[in-house]
């Protein structure tokens, strides 16, 4: 199954292994700063590495940084798959 290229995907919708560019981050101020410091900035490349079981966290890679985050937070990040 191929995922369509589109502007309005959420990070949580990527399939493991898929790469995308971050197009928007819709988080409150505190979380926005934390995400930015971890590399979640508009235009940055992101790859979904894997998902945890039982709707567990997502493991993503941004450049040289690996981050795990919950589905809820991944929903706040818009991406355009590559």
């Amino acid at each position, binding site marked *: 199954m191929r995922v369509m290229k589109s502007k309005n995907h959420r990070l949580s919708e990527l399939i493991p292994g898929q790469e995308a560019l971050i197009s928007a981050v819709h988080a409150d101020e*505190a979380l926005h700063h934390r995400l930015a410091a971890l590399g979640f900035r508009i235009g940055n490349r992101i790859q979904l590495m894997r998902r945890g*079981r039982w709707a567990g966290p997502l493991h993503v890679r941004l450049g040289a940084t690996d981050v*795990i985050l919950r589905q809820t937070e991944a929903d706040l990040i818009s991406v355009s798959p590559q």
Partner: protein
Amino acid sequence: MKRIALLGMPNTGKSTLFNRLTGSSARVANWAGVTVDLASAKILLGGHIAEMVDLPGIYDLHGFSDDEKVVRHLLEGHPIDLLAIVVNATQIERQLPLVLQVRSLGLPAVLLLNMADEAKRNGVEVDCTRLAARLGMPVVLMSAKYGVGQPEAMRVLAQALTEASDIGPARRAQMQEVLSDDVRIEQETAAMMAEAVTMPLQLPEQVSDRIDRLALHPWLGLPLFFLAMLLLFQAVFWIGGPLQQGLTWLFDQLRQLALEPLAAQLPDFLHGLLLDGVYSGFVTVAAFVPLIILFFLFIALVEDSGYLARAAFLTDALMAKLGLDGRSFVMVLMGFGCNVPAVMGTRMMRARPLRLLSMLVIPLSLCSARLQVFLFIVSAIFAPAQAPWVIFGFYLVSFLTMIVTALLFRGRFKSNEPFVVELPPWRVPTLRQVVMRGWLEVRHFLSRATRFIVLGVIAIWLLTNLPLGAVPGGMDTYAGQLGALFAPVLAPIGIDEKLAVALMFGFVAKEVMIGAFAVIYGMSGDALSQEFARSMDWVQAISFMLFTLIYTPCISTIATIKTESKSVAFATLAVLWPLALAWLTSFVFYQGMRQLLS
């Protein structure tokens, strides 16, 4: 004296560098957020003594969590002569903005690009001269873990410090100004990266990724993790058990061959106090030191490898159902070493309800002090083949009590704290780091030993031998009377008067209990174990251990909970709830087994 502060993002190796430069032994691990408080030490730089301060990691100067506030307060409120900014060289692109934020504060600064070994392996190349010119501060590429580039770093720090003139703390207004400048910082980062850093297009496939395919496997990940933990605890038991017995024998010999003849002239009272009280009590606890060092060496291996962050990934979904998150699980794991740093580690959580719920759960983790008590009792009562499994069972019970506690209290401590955690690569701990950790635990034990254990066993000896004329350890002594006082509560769970006294002192520090056994029963070594096995059956022993596991955090933990929660009411809850749970658990077990076996 001039002051240097180490500043940088979490898990960039600030504490490792701090230890390396100052010869200290601050706790380190491959986990973002080990250091949650300030540590400082003296360092000789260019012929002058300076003070070096190790700060908790911060993601940026906005500072929203408690550990980040610690840094902000220090920057705003205290004079700092030089900032040493520590950056993970591989992640320079992401971490440069923090460097630029800090530079705008106008404090003299030096950039230390740490983990040069990993950067090289990843194909990241930094032109330090160009970057230094661009930043307007010295740049050193180094590896704190292996000591590469250390002399250069020392030289640069010393020089920067002589040139630095005290310009006072950063002002709040200035801090605000800096923080509103995000766009400019982003542009400047991009420009510097283009000029001075070569990044590979794609990071080469790392061993770390291959390990993760197994360690984070959807089905195998969690079972593998628990298997690894089980093997570690078994190893501690198999290697540490004989060490403890050997040491016990040695202490016995020392007493018989050297101390008894020496103390023969002393009056009875003093002879008893010194030998049956202080010596017996102390050495019974001290015999466990090698085992505990071993235990912490293994813990250090787990912590330094990066398995903790994997555990957070693997357990987060389950922890979410309990109202906690993967970081709470990591703190619980740290709690298996000692509850105190684990409780402090919750500082990285911003939502207060999540912090409180974690703090309520952490003291239920079977810490190394309780492990000593269990090892002692289990090896006295159970066959060697059963013993490790009984101990393992108590770890399971420990988890169960946490689950019950979280389920009961999650409604009262609701939060929607975001869960966003860095996953560091797997790293090989150096021997130096692991040995340092062991040494840290020896020191920790010695300080507890002098503070609690010696005073504790003296107090217990006095209680079990006074008033004068009473039969030592008998019902007429103060201890006997105290025990009788608690009998109505403790008899239904199979705990006799003698053990009741031990429990009272376990409240101070759990390992005092073993010392207490020696003093209360008036024997040590094998004789004590045999007396133990004679005086109680396995149902009583397990009931007593269940109660010991759960009943109340030790005094240090309670004090930490009070400080961290800033609430006497919460600290009270953290004492009373486990006490109630302990009694209920032991009651159900003891009475249930008595019914079953009768």
